[in-house]
């Protein structure tokens, strides 16, 4: 197919009927970056699916060590969850301010989003430090290995999201709402909301179901 359209001269005259040309009205994605970023998120989703599968398989293999019911502090997880959920809506507000082309308001909401994300990471690190202090290290049991792998991978994503957010704030401050920055904002928005979606799986399957008897 590509041969006939690229080298029409190589074929005989009758093949001319089969030639296909690009028609402007044809359907195709208009901005490749956003679709490409979505595909990246989907592949990231597969990473998390593998980690969830590992947790699903060995999540109850305590090796006579502590179980989720012994370790998890649900009120801490609830605070963490609300931090991430609030950061989602504040990022939404930043996107809305960007649509209205108000730079300072956008930066303000982005800053609040970053602080909420940092609070989330801080609480998670506090939880990890607490667990390790109690002897519930990743080496203790298969359950804890899977737990740390899954939750820390999510935490690393949030950390890099915060780094991206800070860099983007600097770029917005410097260049304003140029098309590149608008595109970056949309990508980061997808990334941030995607992490919140993954967190739904984490708090449901790991924390809430982990403490069930």
């Amino acid at each position, binding site marked *: 197919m590509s041969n006939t359209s690229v080298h029409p001269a190589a074929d005989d005259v009758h093949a001319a009927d089969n030639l296909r040309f690009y028609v402007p009205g044809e359907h195709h994605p208009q901005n490749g970056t956003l*679709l490409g970023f979505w595909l990246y998120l989907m592949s990231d989703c597969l990473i998390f699916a593998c980690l969830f599968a590992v947790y699903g398989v060995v999540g109850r293999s305590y090796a006579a060590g502590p179980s989720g019911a012994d370790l998890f502090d649900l009120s801490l997880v609830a605070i963490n969850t609300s931090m991430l959920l609030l950061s989602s809506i504040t990022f939404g507000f930043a996107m809305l301010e960007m649509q209205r082309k108000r730079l300072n308001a956008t930066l303000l909401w982005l800053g609040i989003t970053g602080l909420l994300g940092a609070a989330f990471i801080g609480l998670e690190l506090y939880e990890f430090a607490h667990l390790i202090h109690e002897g519930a290290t990743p080496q203790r049991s298969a359950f804890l290995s899977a737990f740390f792998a899954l939750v820390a991978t999510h935490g690393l994503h949030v950390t890099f999201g915060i780094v991206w957010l800070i860099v983007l704030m600097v770029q917005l401050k410097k260049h304003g709402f140029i098309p590149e920055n608008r595109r970056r904002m949309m990508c980061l928005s997808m990334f941030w909301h995607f992490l919140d979606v993954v967190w739904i799986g984490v*708090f449901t399957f790991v924390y809430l179901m982990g403490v069930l008897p």
Partner: protein
Amino acid sequence: MSAHTNTLANGHHGHHGHDDHGHDHDHDHDDGHEPSTFKGYMTGFVLAVILTVIPFWLVMGKVFEQSSTTALFLMGFAAVQIVVHMVYFLHMNARSEGGWNMLALIFTLVIVAITLAGSIWVMFHLNQNMMPGMMHDMKNMP
């Protein structure tokens, strides 16, 4: 479609989109999404809060006697909340990016379902067949 024509098409439209940025709003597809609204985000947020609070209440308040009942409810709420986030925060619909977003999502969901269900199914049966009672049979195998 040959790669050649695709590149041309994307290049052309990329420039078109950039030129139009900033000074007109009548074509909402210039960045692949329709404009988000305050109402949309708030609806999503309120729904997400409700769908988060109920599972925590179910577990922390020990509402059900049976763990399996609670687990079923938890999974149900998680599934609904993921859909809410997808629709209101990630602006998923069948039209964004000409439907390719949705296609990629469906493909991923299929793979994720196979990965999760397959792993748990296989490993569960592996565990069962490796139970201490089975070791006697294993010894007699060639």
